[in-house]
């Protein structure tokens, strides 16, 4: 009888302990779950902001790519212009040489040229006054 009571008490103790443990474990798991959910909710804005920054970075990268292309075109145009300017410089130099040459020749020209004396062989025609069809003037 005593042994059976001891077994029952032991079984009750073990069962009780197991029950208490289960309750405690469930409580701990529940608390842990709530804490995790709060943490996740707290981090969500940061995650969203990171997503927005990533989007902005993509657009910026695209713009930089476009700007890089434009710069490439401008650089090519500038090179072509520089080549044309170099050619123009050469032409201006040649023109300068020509102008100097003309100026030098002009400076060597005489200031006055003696022309032969003219003899008037015919009388100068005196123009008659033009006959007019009408006259414009003050009205009234």
């Amino acid at each position, binding site marked *: 009888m005593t042994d059976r009571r001891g077994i029952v008490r032991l079984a009750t103790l073990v069962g009780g302990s197991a029950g208490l443990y289960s309750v405690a474990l469930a409580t701990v798991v529940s608390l842990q779950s709530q804490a995790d959910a709060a943490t996740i909710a707290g981090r969500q804005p940061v995650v969203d902001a990171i997503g927005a920054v990533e989007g902005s970075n993509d657009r910026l990268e695209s713009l930089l790519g476009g700007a890089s292309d434009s710069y490439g075109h401008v650089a090519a145009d500038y090179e072509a212009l520089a080549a044309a300017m170099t050619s123009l410089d050469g032409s201006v130099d040649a023109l300068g040489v020509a102008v100097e040459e003309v100026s030098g020749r002009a400076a060597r020209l005489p200031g006055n040229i003696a022309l032969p004396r003219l003899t008037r062989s015919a009388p100068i025609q005196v123009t008659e006054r033009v006959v007019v069809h*009408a006259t414009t003037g003050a*009205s009234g």
Partner: protein
Amino acid sequence: MRTFEGRAMGSPLRLSVPGTTDAEAGWRAVLDEFELSEQAMSRFRETSELTRLNRLAGKTESVVVSGRLRMALTAAERARRVTGGRFEPRVLTALDRVGYRGARLPVVDATPRSRWSGAVVRRSGCAGLMIDHPIDLGGIGKGLAVRWATRRLERLGLSDFLLEAGGDLMTRGAAPDAGEWKIGIEDPFGGPDPKAVIAVGPAGAAVATSSIRVHQWRSDGRLVHHLIDPATGEPGGAGLQAVTVAGPDPAWAEVWSKSLFVGGADAIGDEARSRGLAAWWVDDSGTLGMTPAARPMTAWVAGEG
């Protein structure tokens, strides 16, 4: 050459047609056009449309006007804008003040000149026109009449003619000797010889002169004339006696001759050259000046033989 003579708009009117061309119908059209134009645009005629409009200046009553007066007011407004205000149709009060009076107006417009800003016509619509200030169409009206009469002559099939209305002329085609029409520029001091002669080819041209030889009188002890400078409200054209302009259209030739005159002797050369006008002018000393565009049209100049 057949010549028809009459009088309109206070000036002699003459149509010259080379050869024996039957131009009776043309002359009747010219007389009719000038009568209609005078009835529309004259400020001297008591019953003209312009006088009726001027009598209601500043009031809220609209006046229904003919197409001629409406076109004339549009042209005058454009001339005012193109000349930068040198041509101003609202100088009637100033003209009245110096003694060049037309039909009697009930109210004297005492508006300061600075108030002339804005369009000449305040309101224009189907119901008629409203104006704020009395209007004078001198300096464009006769040119418009010559323009409209020229169109009627052309519609009648006349290709060679010379139409004269006072100082305003219009030529078309060939002169009697199949050559150029020769137009003398009157000596504004009254001398018998012209100051110069303009030759106009078959394409034709309009020639207009603004001169103070006829309309000059004494007012308050000083010599005044009818060409008012809108900037001062007083007779303008300091140092000038006459200005002649040739161009394709008689109304614009008249507008420019008046505008250049009003600018005076100091400004006329630069102004006429910058606008590419064929212009001749005689200053107070009797000296003839002309623009580069005028030189090729000049067939003879007094003193040059």
